[in-house]
């Protein structure tokens, strides 16, 4: 059974899962409430949405997937960081290139 603690699925506890759930609900409720009420400026709302999304991804990784800095998770973490880099290049790169393209083609603002 000892092998099952390796490779990305360490054991959790009820307390950990409940904390994960509470944090998820809070970090979901904040952006929904902000957008629904429309009380803040668009730029600020956008920033808070992105912040809450990133925070919630980390909450899920820590509380539900039990990721931490342990050395037995090194390959999970390494591949994870690598994928974040690739995803950033694909998403931000696409947006960047296509915006310039649209600008040069005079298709929009």
């Amino acid at each position: 059974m000892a092998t099952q603690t390796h490779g990305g699925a360490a054991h959790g506890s009820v307390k950990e899962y409940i904390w994960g759930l509470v944090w998820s609900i809070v970090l979901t409720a904040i952006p929904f409430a902000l957008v629904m009420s429309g009380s803040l400026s668009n730029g600020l709302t956008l920033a808070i949405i992105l912040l809450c999304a990133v925070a919630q991804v980390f909450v899920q990784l820590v509380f539900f997937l039990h990721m931490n800095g342990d050395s037995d998770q090194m390959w999970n973490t390494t591949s994870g960081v690598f994928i974040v880099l690739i995803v950033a290049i694909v998403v931000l790169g696409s947006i960047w290139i296509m915006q310039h393209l649209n600008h040069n083609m005079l298709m929009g603002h």
Partner: protein
Amino acid sequence: MSTIEIQHEAGYTGYVSEEHHHDYAGDTLLGFWIYIMSDCILFATLFATYAVLSGSFAGGLTPADLFDLNFVAVETGLLLFSSFTFGMAMLGAQQKNMTQLLLWLGITFALGGGFLSMELYEFYHFSHEGAGPTSSAYWSAFYALVGTHGLHVFAGMFWMVILVIHILKDGITAENHTRLSCLSLFWHFLDIIWICVFSMVYLMGVM
């Protein structure tokens, strides 16, 4: 790099000698984790497409016309809660508690089903209102992104059924526990993707 070296560097020194063993949890889970990382790239391309096409409505309906945030909030709640209930099922499996495992898996399945039904209803509703997959570049990207996530949820539920059959047949064996751990990774991963979907598609769509 050989398997042994990978195991060694990852700290799996305890069972290098068991290399002939046909299924042990550490390698299987790491392999599944790498599959999930590759799935991230699939979703990244869909998100990039969506972002690039997020203003291309071809003069038709925009997301602000159709999205209902109350509806999406309930959808999100179902999926978030299912992530929690899957965690409880995992605890049941670790304690070898069959009743707890099956009960929480059943709840997770029901929540997943609820989520999927709401999504299908939403697709039907949008198409009915005149925003189908062929209406504009924006809606094509929308259905591709949200639909791919939905297909993953469906696959996860299908897998859950198969796994419950395995568990009912063989009990909570080491192999079934490994399979359950993989499904757990998959299910939490879908929740993480949904966080990006509701933030980027729904919340930003109505702003």
